[in-house]
């Protein structure tokens, strides 16, 4: 060896393991983020996620968590890299190597590593996403909507994250070399990380802060909107979650530094406790990242069981097998035709009920929004014709629901779902009902609400009131509701499918609209704004997918068409297909986050072991048995895996339970939500099982590395 180049090459060979660790960590992070963003930005997914909708926000929120997690992980990995390089760099510096020589050497190394890692991660991220998605299509569910299309713009995100990784590693290299004290650099690898004193109350205070942060974060947006009449920027309301993260940090810090088992002898776990303490900062940061990513993984994986269980239960408990409604001017199959079709399909109809409904305007408070310097504010303005609602007479209700309701004239009864939830059914706010064609009005007072899943959201009037107010109402403001039951409902899928197609085929383009399409609001918007955002020609402008008869199997159509029939057997069988993109998207996200958790926990466990290698050798010389050494190693790795798993799982489950509690009106958990939460527990059990299996695998690997 004669020259600096020879030296560089020789040292490069020696440091390959270290290089490889950094390369794999950067590669893994970029790969996962690229895969995530490929799916997140895919038109396949964007089409089914309404702009500004909760699902899109959730996907974005978990993405932000994943970026923070992977970013923190690469920062940690590069810290390890420079730590391992410190002795070599310090010696060269001590022997007179200039910073310029060392900078050139180090920059070339990290430049090569990060470029290869980022390029490979970005290039392979999309094939990974595509491959996983195809696997879902092959093994889980496939539909027309599941065909994956990609958006090249996704690469901008991947590129931005890659740039972050490269810049961050270079900045850390610069900081590493700029340290003036050579002695510090030489001793860096041996330096422990003393953590400042952590008071005993940190743990409980942290738990309290987590609870307060979760509550405030969830409630703040609603508080701003309902109490302050202000739509604050989303970033602002997200700040209210801050105590949750501060609390999480405090809990982990307390766990690492103090531990929770105060009563036990301090000598019981003296070695692992001390080791964890003096790698405190790294340990807590890693645990924080694992906790957050695991929470993201569970949040995403709760989507399918929650939705699936709730839907399965509600479909099972529907009071009728078949229900459909149509605008009275449409040529939709009537009883005779339906019975004939049933006969053709070998289906026996056991009961038939039909009743008219009428669309009437109701009064209410309209939110009038004003753009200001602080964002959008609103004020409530009373309007006699604020929106329209569908009304039934009490006879129609009795026919359809098999009830004997007798309302007093001048009263109105709202129909809630079977759990008593009344999304948007505010009978106490309706005081005036108007026939928009004749201008006839009816003053009403609220009566006791009714419960019926298939008629949910409609209102009931006294027969006399109904007849009077609907007089002169043309067919386009009237609807027919039909309920019928069949024998062996679960065997009638093909009949259901045929009837569904018949209904869609015979519906006119004037009813090819969203369920939220409201002729009263439309009329007002056209007068005031010149357009109505739910009119088919405006949908694209506002980020909505059109309701299209040709896309009748799409989730958009099945979930949001104004006249979508409710056929139990059809809905049950097509549920997974209809919701395929949603379900697979969240499954994909869960897999990506879980993968990140496993990679980080594995890397951390290995470095915990490597950092303590000397100590394990010393303990062995002091007479520690293999059993004792294994116990010590186990204790440390267990904390890397179990503490964040426990905290992350418990926190996200509690958050989910809280969201479910506050998500309805009235507050509380419905039987569907209970069932969903039970199914989520099964997911937690499965996820925990995978984590435990991986923990055992990692443990074996570490034993082998340490030769114990």
């Amino acid at each position, binding site marked *: 060896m004669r020259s600096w180049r020879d030296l560089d090459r020789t040292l490069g060979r020696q440091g390959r393991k270290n290089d490889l660790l950094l390369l794999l960590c950067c590669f893994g992070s970029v790969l996962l983020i690229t895969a995530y963003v490929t799916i997140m930005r895919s038109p396949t997914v964007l089409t089914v996620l309404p702009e500004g909708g909760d699902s899109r926000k959730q996907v974005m929120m978990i993405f932000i968590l994943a970026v923070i997690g992977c970013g923190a992980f690469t920062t940690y990995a590069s810290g390890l890299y420079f730590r391992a390089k410190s002795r070599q760099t310090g010696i060269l510096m001590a022997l007179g190597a200039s910073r310029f020589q060392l900078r050139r050497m180090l920059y070339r190394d990290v430049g090569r590593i990060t470029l290869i890692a980022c390029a490979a991660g970005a290039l392979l991220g999309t094939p990974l996403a595509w491959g996983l998605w195809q696997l879902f299509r092959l093994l889980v569910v496939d539909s027309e909507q599941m065909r994956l299309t990609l958006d090249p713009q996704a690469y901008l995100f991947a590129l931005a994250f890659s740039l972050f990784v490269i810049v961050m590693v270079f900045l850390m290299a610069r900081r590493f070399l700029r340290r003036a*004290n050579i002695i510090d650099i030489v001793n860096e690898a041996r330096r422990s990380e003393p953590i400042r004193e952590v008071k005993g109350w940190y743990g409980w205070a942290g738990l309290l802060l987590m609870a307060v942060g979760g509550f405030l974060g969830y409630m703040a947006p609603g508080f701003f909107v309902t109490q302050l009449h202000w739509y604050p920027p989303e970033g602002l309301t997200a700040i209210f979650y801050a105590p949750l993260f501060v609390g999480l940090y405090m809990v982990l810090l307390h766990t690492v530094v103090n531990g929770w088992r105060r009563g036990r002898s301090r000598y019981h776990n003296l070695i692992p406790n001390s080791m964890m303490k003096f790698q405190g900062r790294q340990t807590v940061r890693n645990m924080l990242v694992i906790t957050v990513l695991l929470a993201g993984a569970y949040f995403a994986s709760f989507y399918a069981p929650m939705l699936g269980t709730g839907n399965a239960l509600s479909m099972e408990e529907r009071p009728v097998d078949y229900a459909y409604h149509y605008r009275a001017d449409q040529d939709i199959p009537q009883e005779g035709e339906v019975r004939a079709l049933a006969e053709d399909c070998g289906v026996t109809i056991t009961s038939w009920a039909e009743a008219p409904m009428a669309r009437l305007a109701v009064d209410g408070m309209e939110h009038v929004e004003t753009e200001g310097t602080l964002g959008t504010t609103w004020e409530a303005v009373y309007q006699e014709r604020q929106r329209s609602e569908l009304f039934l007479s009490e006879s129609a209700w009795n026919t359809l629901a098999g009830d004997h309701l007798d309302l007093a004239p001048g009263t109105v009864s709202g129909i809630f779902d079977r759990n008593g939830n009344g999304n948007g059914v505010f009978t106490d706010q309706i005081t005036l009902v108007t026939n928009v064609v004749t201008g006839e009005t009816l003053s009403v007072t609220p009566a006791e609400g009714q419960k019926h899943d298939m008629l949910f959201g409609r209102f009931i009037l006294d027969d006399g009131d109904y007849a009077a107010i609907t007089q002169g109402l043309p067919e386009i403001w009237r609807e027919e509701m039909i309920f019928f039951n069949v024998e062996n409902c679960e065997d009638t899928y093909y009949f259901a499918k045929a009837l569904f197609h018949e209904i869609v085929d015979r519906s006119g383009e004037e009813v090819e609209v969203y369920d939220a399409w409201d002729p009263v609001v439309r009329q007002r918007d056209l007068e005031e704004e010149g357009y109505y955002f739910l009119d088919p020609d405006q949908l694209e402008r506002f980020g909505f997918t059109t309701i299209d008869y040709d896309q009748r199997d799409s989730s958009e159509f099945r979930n949001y068409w104004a006249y979508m029939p409710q056929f139990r057997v059809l809905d049950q069988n097509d549920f997974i297909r209809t919701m395929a993109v949603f379900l697979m998207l969240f499954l994909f996200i869960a897999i990506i986050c879980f993968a990140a958790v496993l990679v980080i926990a594995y890397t951390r466990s290995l470095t915990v072991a490597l950092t303590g290698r000397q100590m394990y050798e010393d303990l062995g010389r002091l007479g520690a048995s293999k059993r004792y050494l294994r116990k010590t190693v186990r204790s440390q790795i267990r904390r890397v895996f179990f503490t964040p798993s426990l905290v992350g799982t418990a926190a996200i489950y509690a958050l989910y339970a809280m969201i479910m509690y506050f998500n309805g009106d009235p507050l509380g958990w419905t039987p569907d939500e209970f069932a969903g939460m039970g199914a989520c527990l099964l997911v937690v059990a499965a996820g925990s099982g995978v984590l435990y299996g991986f923990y055992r695998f990692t443990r074996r690997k570490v034993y082998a590395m340490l030769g114990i």
Partner: protein
Amino acid sequence: MLYVENLKKSYMVGGQPVEVLKGVSLQLAQGEFVAVMGPSGSGKTTLLNGISCYIAADSGQITLGGEKLADLGEEALAKVRNEKLGFVFQDFMLLDGLTVRDNILLPRIIAGGVDDEGERYADQLCEAFGIGHIKGKFPAEISGGEKQRCAVARALMNHPLLILADEPTGNLDSKSSRTVIETFLQARRELGATIFMVTHDSFAASFCDRVVLLKDGTVSNQLSRGGDSRGAFQDRLLGAIREMSGGDGDAVLA
């Protein structure tokens, strides 16, 4: 050849400044072998790190071969470390991935590259210090004494004005310690090396021409060997240490 004048250095410990060197002055002549002794915390290593240009002093002056180190920029200081100083550390500081010979060549490689003369000189040093037979081995394959002799050879590679040794026998058994000290003596005798050594070991220090005793960041005493035998000088040294520590010499040496 080396002049240290009124050198002061303090560190922040727990937010409070602690003065480690309180105005140390000393000088070394060409070819002199000088040891610095003193209790823990007396400022020995800080003094050595200051002369090594590893840390910057708060005030005072270090002049090496007529060059004032405080006036030099970063690159020039690196050049001084490479060309005018040689280092021997307690834990050897050899690069594990390089052979003994390559470790010895390291200062020359850093200086710009090794020519035939450089390789011949490295081989000469190996032979001179009795490590010729292991020059192709890696640090992990040789003993502590051999590692330290390798480090001394490395320190001499660029014909430095001064060799700075920080507890060079601290990690060695008595036999290896003696071999390393003899290596220093040989370097001084045959190559005219000037050596400045920090040590706790009165036996190692008794081989030196002069011993500087530091206490609480100041020079407490200086003893020259003169015509004394090594044993007599060690006795004198122990007496001075005992006197410096208020009658308990063992406490200082522990």
